[in-house]
């Protein structure tokens, strides 16, 4: 199958990559050694593969890499700036809102999207917005606390 060259913005930087037609965004990101978005269920149900594409959260496992052409991608790795964690990341640490950590990137990115749209969400609004993210360790109560702590600190 034909390889294709795509150009896109990755965490603020203009980049290009050669991809196969069947590659998804996770395959693409692995070319850049960005591993925070991870394919788990492979069906867009768990949220472990969350990537932000042109300001919208997408499931990296269900999005073909070629779709990134001309677009802007951001991943969990861009939240830390110059060695300084973002308020959301700090809140997740302070509230103990992670266990195995496999789903954590997705929860943090979705929290960022939520707070961008709704700076002071209620518990129910948090649950609704994060309902596309699953955590098998069952860290949901701590995640809700983390979102509220992050909202307070912003």
């Amino acid at each position, binding site marked *: 199958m034909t390889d294709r060259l795509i150009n896109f913005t990755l965490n603020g930087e203009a980049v290009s990559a050669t991809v*196969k037609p*069947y*590659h998804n965004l996770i395959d693409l990101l*692995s070319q850049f050694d*960005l*591993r*925070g*978005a*991870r394919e*788990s*269920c*492979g*069906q867009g*149900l*768990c949220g*472990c593969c969350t990537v932000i594409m042109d300001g919208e959260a997408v499931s990296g496992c269900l999005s073909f890499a070629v779709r990134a052409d001309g677009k802007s991608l951001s*991943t*969990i*790795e861009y*939240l*830390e700036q110059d060695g300084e*964690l973002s308020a959301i*990341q700090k809140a*997740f*640490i*302070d509230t*103990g809102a*992670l*266990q*195995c*950590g*496999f*789903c*954590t*990137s997705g929860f*943090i990115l979705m929290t960022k999207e939520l707070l961008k749209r709704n700076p002071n969400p209620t518990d129910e609004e*948090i*649950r*609704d917005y*994060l*309902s596309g*993210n*699953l*955590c*098998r*360790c*069952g*860290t*949901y*109560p*701590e*995640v*809700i606390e983390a979102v509220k702590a992050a909202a307070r600190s912003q």
Partner: protein
Amino acid sequence: MNQVGRSIPRVEARAKVTGRAEYIHHFTLPHMLYGKVLRSTVAHGRIKTIDTAAAKAHSGVHSVVTASDIMKIVPHPYYGPAFHDQPILAVDKVFHVGQAVAVVLAEDPHVADAAVQLIEVEYEELPAVFDEVEAAKNEIVVHDELKPAGTFTDLKHLVGRKNTNIALDFQLKRGDPDGAFAAANRVFEHTFRFPTQLAVSFEPFVTVGEPRADGLTLHTASQMPSFVRLEIARLLGWPENKVRIRVPLLGGGFGAKTYIKLEALVAVLALIAKRPVKIAATMEEQFYIINNHPATFRIKSAVSDSGRVIARECEVWWNGGAFADIGPRVSQKSGFTASGPYDIEHVKIDSYEIYTNLPPTGAVRGFGIPQLVWAYESHTDIIARDMGIDPVEFRRMNILREGRPHATGTDMRDAAIDKVLDTIADEMNWKIPLARGEGKTRRGRGIGIGIKASISPTASVAIVNISADGSITLSMSTVDMGQGSDTIMSQAAADVLDVDPGVVKIVHPDTDVTPFDVGTLGSRSTFHMGHAVRLAAIDAKKKLEALAEEAGLPKGTNYPPSEIFKKRYGMQAGNVIGTATYMPTYVPPDKETGMSSDVTPNWMIGGAGVDLEVDTETGHIRIHKLINVVDCGTPINPEIVRTQISGAAIMGLGSALSEDVHTDGGQITNASLADYKIMGIHDIPAMKNIAVDAVQKNGPFGAKGVGESAIFAVAPAIANAIDDAIGVRLTHLPITPEAVLRALRIKENRPIEDDE
């Protein structure tokens, strides 16, 4: 300053919130091949032919591997911790749907995925058996002969047994149960079923094999690096030190990543290809690799008129699937607690591990305890309600108190069953009567309580290395899969050495440098490895004091370590290495009676209280409050303990309310997160999570394990609350709205009729 008892954040938290935590899921090596497994489509059958020609011809395929290739490297390719019954790839026969039959290797995983579908296998189907009670009749036999591994002495008597599906029969007999039942006024008997469920780690099974000049390295998502090493070495006929097992963090494990999963296959593939090989299971494949034991439990109790349980008979059939894995341990080590946390004079337990043609089952959070607690706490509640005794009072009359002998004969020590029970009752305001309601919504409450023995006897070894600048490295083979072991072990070492835990660096399991540990399972690490780390740190401290003396420093003075090294060696040089091995005492159960005076070094206690409402028109339940209480001794990190309690209880909710692997002729029909429903953020009720004030006196810093305790009793507490609300008793999990509604309609004498 005490470092133990503080809620410091997890040491790996920063790596996890920045997406940079290391999992084998991401791991790649130059020149690496990806393997894709062809899995059996039949539950039991003879392989007539395997045609790999089309797959081999597919562009980009490196090779196609079947059992005959495997046997050139490993002539007898069978593995397993309890029985050597599981072939690396199917040899002549298949025993369950999903069994690995062949592998395609390619540089591009997508190519391997496409090519694997070109392999044609022709099977001669054989009769299959799926139900554990049915299989116990031995009318259809799964394996021709039993092949115990020899690792466990209590399995030796099974060598060469034929025409049986019973892989292990454990018996316990205390007192005179037959006589007690014959003389009893009140006898209760019920049968309960626990379905197939699974761990569903979000990082599916994954292993990378790397052939090296000096042997073989496996980079693997395993809870058991030490066992993997010795089993791979045994298969290859190599010394252990030629096999290196490296495990960074795990994206969940929950017991599923114990023993051998993909490791044996990947090891041999890497040796055949002479190149690094990676196999990463998909979420769907996880459903065919290892599941939790479905179980049928028949339980019978004789009760005095005053409400004392005098005798209890337990018969448990554990559905082990096609390969034993650790099942025979589950059915014995958990089986002996089948009579529950109760002080009963006459007890009889029969616990059978049974082969069937389902995918293999093994350890999943609780190691068999949730199956037992589901039955005995439902049964106990039915008795109490039937006799008109308050369920909390009934338990108070019957629970095992400190110093009393458990059914095995081992005395209860530091087992705060009473405290856990009282705390649940207090938190539920149990003394205040509950208004059940009269409309279509009815309210009820229920409790449950369970106990678990530590899997014994098992060893842990730790190494504490103090460098010349005073920085500390802790090497151990405990695997942090999210439970927080790296954090609490750094606290344990720091506490002894009187430093900040941040000074302690953890070396993740790497069998070339980290010492032996039986494994990270059964909530054993805090107790066993906690001891080893504490003792290794004490050893290092003593050696540092000796070094100070050699350096001519006056005794008892408080020089910083870096000064001691500098003084002794004239520069920043040297190490102090402290080491320790911990293994508790143990007396194996008597072969005839199953009795032992020392069957476990500690008891883990977990209980739940549920306050809920039932919609009598739809069968839906809504939990108002879930109280989770455990005795884990003294928590080393209280916040991590609270999260463990909460997380286990949430997994328990899924187990109770929705998780159910559906099979049809051995085929799994819901092998995905779309159809196998785990708890999401909307499913979590108001919860309170409590570790009672307790001390495990023989534990490190007064602590014992906690990872499983809060899962034990969630399901029976829910079933008991439903009975309390609407007078309907559920005996099968999961408790779906449909199950509740069907049971309610049967009670109302208007059963739901199914369309034909």
